């Protein structure tokens, strides 16, 4: 390939890649919100949310995706795949899965904020979070019947419309709307309620919060429950984007983690800005806006951006309140 033409600018894919990036950022943003919330409470990454995201995706697919027609069932019969899925209605299933995600995350939150685990060092708590995530993943893998099919969309999400030359589904639009609703709701919760004051107090200084009587355990458990519900919602929405391939789901979780890193785990608006930026860059690379880029090089560029931001924030960021402080 001629090196002079290796880098090119494809104008006609530029606009659609921006649209696609913005619609994808909703997913990253939702999961990032839950990670940032739980990080502010415990100063550890709640990897358990990765397990909840995965379980949410696969369970929503199993419980709500329609069974195939008779011909499709016959095709699958030889593969040993089950076709007797319950086909529950989607809205109650979504609520039920969110409650289940909240319960699992609340249990984890209770363990790390209200038991002797709260006294353990952060690296130990991170290992515990990884263990819980792996436990959930192991249980899901044990019973997983999916093999990469796309998950069902939200009710009414099948409709498509065009923005420029890019098709956008209602499911993608609803994801963005849900993200906006979640962010606004949390903003009101954190700024205008007593509970929000408690959360901000714990996020700023745990010891001082204890001294003034903030119920750390209850606040922590509740925050984890809320973030677990959001993670479950993120998992439910994810299935329609990337399907039920477990590695693709975990990849999205990693992207959400990177988004949090870009926002320095400091605030939700920063995380959302990071989500939009990363999603657009990712989309532009996948859409060959700058010429064909190998999957490996794409990942290398994203990791390079991540490393650069981390080094810049370390070099020029505010050390006092930054998560980079040791």
């Amino acid at each position, binding site marked *: 390939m001629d090196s002079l033409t290796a880098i090119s600018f494809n104008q006609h894919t530029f606009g659609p890649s921006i649209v696609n990036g913005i619609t994808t950022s909703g997913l990253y943003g939702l999961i990032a919100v839950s990670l940032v919330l739980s*990080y502010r409470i415990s*100063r*550890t*990454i709640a990897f358990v949310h990765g397990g909840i995201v995965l379980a949410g995706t696969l369970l929503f697919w199993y419980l709500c995706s329609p069974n195939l027609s008779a011909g499709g069932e016959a095709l699958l019969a030889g593969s040993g795949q089950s076709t007797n899925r319950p086909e529950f209605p989607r809205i109650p299933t979504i609520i039920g899965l969110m409650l289940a995600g909240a319960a699992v995350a609340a249990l984890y939150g209770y363990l790390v904020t209200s038991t002797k685990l709260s006294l*353990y*060092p*952060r*690296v*130990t708590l*991170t*290992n*515990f979070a*990884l*263990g*819980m*995530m*792996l*436990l*959930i*993943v*192991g*249980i899901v*893998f*044990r019973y997983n019947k999916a093999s990469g099919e796309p998950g069902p969309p939200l009710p009414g999400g099948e409709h498509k419309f065009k923005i420029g030359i890019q098709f956008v589904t209602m499911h993608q639009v609803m994801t963005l709307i849900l993200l906006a609703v979640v962010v606004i709701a949390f903003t009101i919760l954190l700024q205008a309620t007593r509970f929000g004051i408690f959360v901000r107090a714990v996020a700023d200084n745990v010891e001082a919060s204890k001294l003034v009587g903030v119920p750390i355990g209850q606040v922590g458990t509740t925050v984890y429950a809320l973030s677990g519900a959001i993670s479950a919602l993120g998992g439910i929405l994810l299935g329609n984007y990337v399907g039920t391939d*477990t*590695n693709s789901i*975990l*990849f999205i979780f*990693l992207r959400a*983690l*990177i988004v949090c*890193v870009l926002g320095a*785990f400091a605030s939700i608006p920063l995380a959302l800005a990071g989500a939009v930026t990363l999603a657009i860059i990712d989309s532009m690379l996948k859409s060959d806006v700058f010429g064909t880029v190998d*999957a*490996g*090089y*794409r*990942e*290398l560029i*994203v*990791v390079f951006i*991540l*490393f650069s931001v*981390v*080094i810049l924030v*370390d070099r020029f960021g505010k050390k006092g309140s930054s*998560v*980079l*402080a*040791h």
Partner: protein
Amino acid sequence: MATNVTKREPGSEKPGSSTGGSGHGGGSAPTLDVPPRYGGIQGLLGVHPILLLIVAAGVVYPLIANDYWTFNLTVGLILAIACLGLLVVVGWGREISLAQAGLVGSSLYITGYMARGDKPGEVGPGLPFPVAAAVGIAFVIAVSSVVALISMRLSGVYVVVLTLSLQFLLENALFTKEKLTGGLSAPSTPRPNFLGMGMQSDTRMYYYILGVLLVSMMFLYRYRHSRFGRSLIMVGVDKVSAAAVGVSPWMYKVAAFAIAGTFAGIAGALSAPLYRNPPGILQYFSFNSLFYLSVPILAGFESIMATVGVAIFFQMLPQALLSLKINPQLLGGIGLTVGVLAGPRGMGGSLIDLFDARARQKRRAAKANQNKAKAQMGGGGGASGGSKPAPAKAKGSQLGAKAPASAGSEKK
């Protein structure tokens, strides 16, 4: 301040004479009765007899097991080598690396590719196995060191994210290359020759890998007890104190990642000829990195042997209980969770206590003191009549000796 003391066996008649050739002439040098740390067979052999039995069992194993179980144990030994590297990073350096499986896979595929090319139609340079393995190991060390250099000045959460990013980078950049992974028609990696002996049979390959594992364990044992290892442990426990005494936390953590990369590279390089055809890339994906992480955490950070034991157990158990369909993720999750709840000493620490006589005596003494305190409280707090029970004194106890700070103290 130099103090001229010598060790003298208890009961010895000879007055202590300086073994270091002091300048004190023929006068009586001060002596200190330091009994040997271990008596009996352990003192004679230098290692615990149980360890020797385990090694002997490992040597005899292929003679009594069939090929299937010999191969499984061989894979377990390779897993143990990879997990020993994680022990250095996670246990001693107190950092989390989520890229170990990716590094093992990278070394495997690169070594396999470099060693192929001898036969017509094969794509590869056709290097001799030691050179091919060196290339694979060097790549992994370089990658680990670069990531460590960038992330070591930052807080632990960034190390976790960056290593996970590295894992995904390797999956997308290396594992998608068909000429490395073999694609649909995987070519075969030739088995090496060692000192003129071909490693074509699985049994020979088992002994070869067992030898590498034993050398790795000895290296880690020596490293752990050297000043480098102690410095690394100090950095892991409290990097501020380490920096205050002149130990560079940054340098030692980068070294820890480099050592972990070395062990991952060795494990991958040995896997290439063991499997012959490159195994599927799913074995080296991100969830498997978590599985690798669970081994040193469950085993505890004090015992190298425990890490090896848990790795072998995690490899053999799903094979032994095939009907239960235990997947590695479930096993790893249970291992990580139980390991965290068991504390930094883990299962290995508990086993050490079982076999450590001094630990048993301490427990007995603590229990006796507890019973005495209860009896005194129950007796109304007055002076107890009768003879006091003699405090339990361990045979050969060191006066004033304190237990050394273990690697598992919860300072970080």
